[in-house]
């Protein structure tokens, strides 16, 4: 039947059918695709790494805004060390990152291991992951209005924490769910059969198997919190985090810009290894289990 239909169509417009088909075939066989993909990839990599390296190089330049690396100097780092204003925001962000990371690990583990046990997890999953798609400005403003105007609470570090947790948790949850949904619950039955009680089964079996995902959840939590600006602006009260400090400095007087260069370089030096570690965990450790 399909052969009949084909030959009928061919009978109506044999030339057009063949022409269209051969056009697409020729298009998909074009050798240029591989070259385009290669060059596009290269452009993206250049756009990513050149500015970063430029920033790092310029942080050692005597005249960073001129774009000339010479004369080389450590002045900006020295003035950064001499300038105490950035220390407090840095500590605030670092500690905030750790706390958000810890909260993400605990909450994502508890929620993430419960969702696959539900009879119909679809709805809960959707609601839990939707914050991923809520714009930061919207979420920040909404939380601000809710906490400040409706609950009439004083903003501060705690409200920044709430904003960061709401922001980072879906990512952390996603991380944990990758393993939790593949977790073989028959292993827990085997452990129970061998004499392990509920708590023991979690610590001996479930936790070690999910550990890479839980660490990933923590790393995500830290990085997302450490970099967060949009929500923090709304929820800061009188607190200042690292991104807020950088933003204020970069936006105000030009004289502070060199310090931003060196500060950004230091932040990069902290976060890149962290990210590297995260991906090592993700691909090396997860693959093994």
């Amino acid at each position: 039947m399909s052969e009949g239909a084909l030959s009928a169509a061919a009978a109506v417009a044999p030339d057009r059918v063949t022409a269209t088909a051969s056009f697409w075939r020729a298009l998909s066989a074009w050798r240029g695709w591989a070259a385009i993909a290669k060059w596009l990839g290269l452009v993206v990599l250049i756009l990513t790494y050149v500015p970063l390296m430029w920033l790092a190089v310029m942080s050692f330049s005597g005249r960073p805004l001129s774009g000339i690396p010479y004369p080389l100097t450590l002045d900006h780092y020295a003035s950064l060390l001499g300038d105490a204003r950035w220390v407090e925001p840095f500590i605030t962000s670092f500690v905030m990152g750790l706390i958000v990371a810890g909260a993400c690990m605990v909450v994502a583990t508890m929620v993430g291991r419960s969702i696959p046990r539900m009879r119909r997890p679809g709805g809960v999953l959707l609601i839990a992951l939707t914050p991923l798609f809520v714009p930061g400005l919207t979420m920040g403003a909404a939380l601000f209005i809710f906490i400040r105007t409706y609950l009439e609470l004083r903003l501060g570090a705690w409200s920044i924490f709430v904003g960061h947790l709401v922001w980072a948790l879906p990512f952390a949850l996603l991380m944990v769910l990758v393993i939790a949904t593949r977790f073989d619950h028959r292993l827990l039955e085997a452990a129970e059969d061998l004499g392990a009680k509920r708590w023991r089964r979690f610590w001996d079996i479930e936790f070690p198997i999910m550990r890479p995902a839980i660490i990933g959840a923590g790393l995500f939590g830290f990085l997302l919190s450490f970099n967060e600006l949009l929500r923090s602006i709304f929820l800061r009260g009188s607190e200042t985090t690292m991104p807020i400090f950088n933003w204020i400095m970069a936006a105000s007087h030009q004289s502070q810009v060199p310090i931003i260069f060196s500060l950004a370089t230091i932040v990069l030096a902290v976060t890149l290894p962290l990210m590297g570690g995260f991906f090592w965990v993700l691909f090396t450790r997860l693959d093994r289990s």
Partner: protein
Amino acid sequence: MASAVRAEGARHPILEVRDATHRFGDVLALDRVSITAAQGEFLTILGESGSGKTTLLRIVSGLEKPSELESLRIAGQDVARVPASDRNCTTVFQHYALFPHMSVGENVEYGLKVRGVALVERRRRATEALALVRLGDKFDRRVHQLSGGERQRVALARALVTRPAILLLDEPLGALDEKLRQDMQVELLDLHRKLGLTFVYITHSQEEALTMSDRIILMRRGRIVQEGTPANIFERPATRFVADFMGMENLIPARFEGLEDGFAVARVGAHRVRGNWCGVEQAASGDQVHVGVRAERVRFAVSGDEGHPNQITCRQGQTVYKGKYVDQGAETELGTISARIWDHGLDPARITHLWWRTEDCVIVPD
């Protein structure tokens, strides 16, 4: 010997399940099933998938909570309300369920670790258990480095190391290939003899059940249909289902006629067939029954060689060459009858009759 074990077991069974019923939603998976196992017995629960055999095993281990249960005793102790972690039995799972993040040795010693056995002692006992399953040198291996057969043996060692009163085996050889399965059967039997431990073994393979068991319980649709020794179930199936399940190739619908010299007589068309009555209750004349005879018990005769019991004229049917033997079909008035011929010298074209001994023939209720 086996009967002595059973008599002893009847007085002091190591396992006693009374009236276990289990429902999954509206589905009745287990319908008032009672079983007992004697100390040191190799008890096989045989049945096709969905017969309730695995549910029964999970109720014994405590991993499944039965809908209703009269009583459940392991080694004399009532464990109906005891959680799985506190029952004195361990399971070898079909899917192994080895812990992927632990080494072979850590897997084996896990049961001892949760019992608080000191490191040195549990290392020693885990090594011993591994040696028992011939994996003494694999203590530090990762689980994923092992072959299927080795994983199965690790699972076995892990279940044995805590010295349970009963070892539950849930289709443990199901995932292995044919050759390995036969080797493991021998190994399991060897272990059973060496340890004197009670094995409750689940399988859907009648061949496995016959080879290994002291006693077989055959289940169907959540109920026990027959229990007895392998020979008993193989030779004297109590119903048509059992006969079919135990691989009886020829099952011919018939009408029961009566008893004659201790044998049952059934009528198939114009023929009268004599055989052993295997039903639990006596049949009445005119009841629908089945005449059963195994292919390897059907014999052929050529003209001139007549006067055998249960003799029927036939002509050659389909011949299937199987290597060790030939499956020879024969067309008769009773329909097609399959026979298994081990003697390759027989020329199937010369066959004129087939027959079987009265003792080799069973007559079973529907």
